[in-house]
């Protein structure tokens, strides 16, 4: 029989998915009979859900992002327009020659 201490350790460490089937079942069973471990696990789930809503995909992006994107794209184009300026590449990476080196 697993203790509450063990169950919370496994749940919080995200080891559940990797755990062998028997262990997963044991935790499921433990949650059925232990309301405190159930509460603990559901609080961690709710925390994850909250983080996803606050900062996950689809959360609002600021308008300043398009300005930042422009800055970066300009930077990339500037490099294309001056591709072989050896001064800009760092400590003798060899510029173009280096890029053709196979893997």
């Amino acid at each position, binding site marked *: 029989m697993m203790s509450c201490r063990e169950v919370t350790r496994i749940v919080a460490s995200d080891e559940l998915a990797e755990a062998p089937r028997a262990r997963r079942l044991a935790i499921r069973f433990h949650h059925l009979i232990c309301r405190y471990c159930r509460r603990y696990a559901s609080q961690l789930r709710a925390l994850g859900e909250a983080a996803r809503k606050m900062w996950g995909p689809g959360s609002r992006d600021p308008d300043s992002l398009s300005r930042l994107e422009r800055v970066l794209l300009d930077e990339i184009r500037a490099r294309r327009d001056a591709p072989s300026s050896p001064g800009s590449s760092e400590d003798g990476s060899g510029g173009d020659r280096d890029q053709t080196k196979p*893997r």
Partner: protein
Amino acid sequence: MKRRRADILEDDPDFTARIRARDPATLESVVRTTLAQVHRIARSAGLGPQQAEDVVQATFLAFIESAPTFEGRSHVRTWLLGILYNKIAEARRGTSREAQHDPIEEVVESRFNVDGTWARPPRPLDLHLRDKEIRKGIEDCLGELPTQQKMAFLLREAQGLSTQEICKILGVTITHLGVLFFRSRNRLRECLEQKGLKGSRS
């Protein structure tokens, strides 16, 4: 989980070669498909609007700079987020290395009896985001985490990345990542419980 946009960046030999050659169209597509996510992560890590922009810009510039050394052994997003992580750690000034010993371990341990049953069971928490106070509470508690723990939590929960990818980004083993998850989640939970957030409604 939707990862369609990021999947464009799948690593195939051609793609790797184009990154290494700093092919403008390829670099542009990387910027376009990853910028919003990179920025969101920077913000979630507690950087202010201006600082986040600076860090994101520095991240992409470092990425473009080091593109010729990209070996295609990891997903380009993984590589990019590894750079971001280092920039965030720098910006936060703290040493991002996880301490061998962390007091949160004792705090958690103190909640259990010798036989492993709850001595101080978790108190009910209200995590309804509609409540401004609760959002603020989560942000504040997250802000108190050491950078590496915070990033582990955010990359997993907010960004839904796989444990393998997070290990590569943070440069830790899978065992260590489990420790980071355990500590970050318990720190957050304890912090929120201490704030005693009940929410103003049901």
